[in-house]
């Protein structure tokens, strides 16, 4: 299988704080890859390095075999790396529709001149074509009833979904989801998990997900990486990672009675998260 992303020896320091230390891993095309770890472990820092928010102090990032370490976030978006944010980052005063249309920025060709002349330059036709694509995403995520609503007025669960829609509109081949299920109730989590699986299987996107809900992580991810204090302490098959004594000590918490059945784990971790 071809590699989608390769992270080679990435370290990230803010002054004296070591957010990431020599992290290396590779993600294959079509994989659903989860990053877990305790709070402050460097998960979001890692995603920020991939999406270009942060530039690693050391190390390199390769996307589809190409070195992207020095690229700006907008250049990476054009290459097909999309992401959502842990704390919502929607365009609050824009409608849901416009929010999603912004995601198609790098796919649209009209500019401030052709856009201003709308009818004469084919900008209208292009916008309408892309509106069709956006409506497909709206259908998929069940956002029809709120497409005209202002994003800032929506409830939390819907905003999370709009953010996912916006990232999908980029038509990324690699999508980074930073805690897509944080703060959701059980049903919303179930919906979101379904969407994530569909992203991966139906839309063929490679997914990198940060998530604290161990039940979801174990159920849907193909491989899991565990970070602790900015270091990678485990990587591999979900059940193998779960059984790793380092992981249990760092994240899940050790108990006298060792839990092996992944279905029992959520209750234990939800209070920790």
């Amino acid at each position, binding site marked *: 299988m071809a590699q989608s992303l390769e992270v080679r020896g990435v370290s990230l320091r803010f002054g004296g704080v070591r957010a990431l230390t020599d992290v290396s891993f590779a993600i294959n095309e079509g994989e659903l890859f989860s990053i877990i770890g305790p709070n402050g472990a460097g998960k979001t820092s890692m995603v920020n390095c991939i*999406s*270009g*928010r942060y530039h690693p102090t050391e190390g390199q990032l390769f996307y589809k075999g190409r070195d992207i370490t020095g690229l*700006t*976030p*907008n250049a990476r*978006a*054009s290459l097909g790396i*999309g*992401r959502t*944010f842990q704390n919502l*980052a*929607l*365009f*609050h*005063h*824009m*409608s849901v529709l*416009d929010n999603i*249309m*912004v*995601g*198609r*920025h*790098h796919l*649209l*060709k*009209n*500019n*401030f001149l*052709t*856009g*201003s*002349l*709308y009818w004469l330059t084919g*900008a*209208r036709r292009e*916008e*309408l074509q892309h*509106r*069709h694509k956006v*409506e497909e995403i709206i259908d998929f995520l069940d956002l029809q009833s709120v497409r*005209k*609503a*202002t994003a800032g*007025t929506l409830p939390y669960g819907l905003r999370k979904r709009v953010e996912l829609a*916006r990232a999908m509109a*980029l038509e990324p081949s690699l999508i980074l989801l930073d805690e897509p299920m944080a703060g959701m109730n059980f049903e919303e989590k179930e919906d979101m998990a379904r969407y994530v699986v569909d992203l991966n299987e139906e839309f063929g996107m490679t997914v990198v997900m940060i998530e604290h809900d161990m039940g979801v992580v174990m159920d849907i991810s193909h491989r899991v990486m565990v970070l602790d204090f900015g270091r990678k302490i485990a990587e591999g098959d979900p059940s193998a990672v779960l059984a790793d004594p380092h992981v249990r000590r760092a994240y899940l918490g050790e108990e006298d009675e060792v839990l092996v059945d992944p279905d029992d784990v959520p209750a234990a971790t939800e209070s920790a998260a």
Partner: protein
Amino acid sequence: MASPSLIPAGDFRTSYAADTTIFPTRTSRNFAIAGVLLLCLAPQFFSEYWLSILIQIGIFAIAALGLNILVGFTGQISIGHAAFFLFGAFTSAYISNNAPIPVFFAIPLAGVITALVGLIFGIPAARLKGLYLVIATLAAQYILLDFFSRAEWFSGGSVPASAEPFSIFGYTLRGDRQYFYVVLAYVLISYVLVTNLLRTRDGRALVAIRDHYLSAEIMGINLTKYRTLSFALAAFYAGIAGALYAHYQQVVSQEGFGIERSVLFLAMIIIGGTGSIMGTLMGTAFVVLLPESMEWISLRMKGGIIDQALSLNTNITFLREIAIGVIIIAFLMFEPDGLAHRWRQIKAYWKLYPFSH
């Protein structure tokens, strides 16, 4: 209260094309067209004085529109807008005086040249935010004004530069009654262009930067490019407006285009509503008409009971200045979203009348 995202009953749209129209309903579009047609008749019925006020509103509304792209839609700030306005005025006068280019082409050309100057001043702006940007644009204002007073070949120095009257294919338009149509055409074109801009890719990019620049960048928007572009667009419309003003007055001088005029442009879009295209027009009309109506009131008061009781005498003119200040402060306190917001509230109220609760 009705939410503005609600679509009125019976307004069905069966295609995406029907969903991207400028006016939400056919009625509102017809009203707008009727309004424009009525304005076309204005020179027949209005006195020269009121026509000159309408022309001023039109010209300043174009400049304010440019500022609203920058402040209202991109979330940047500029207090050097009057300098770009003046630059457009001098440029158009200079071109039409010194080159064999008719005024008809000199006006858009002045807009483009002003946009290029705006681009230069926009480069540092792409890296600055908030108060630092205010200072940078303040510098732009003073640098340009200083340039005007030194470059006598360009601006005539202390003597006001003269500008030719507007002519089209050898036919010269004279007087307010004819110039009114030129301004009306420019207002319509620029408002339609900006409306189109905001429903396409680059306009959305500007608003995205205003709302959340970090996630805009992650969505593939080049922040530096679009912040600079927004400066150039603002300067373009300021330049067009300035050029129109030059050929209207037929003389251009620095008088009255200092920092206070830049602040007045900001007042127009704040009163009208930042980030609202129609609000820009309303705010400009408000700011231009405010001194006029205050003048009228103070004239009526002269010799009246209040005047005698307070023995105001000559101070009555100062009362006008105070009133303008008070009204602007009241606006900022009670209507921070501007006239556009109030207008939407009124519309929403009437939509459901008498069952608005």
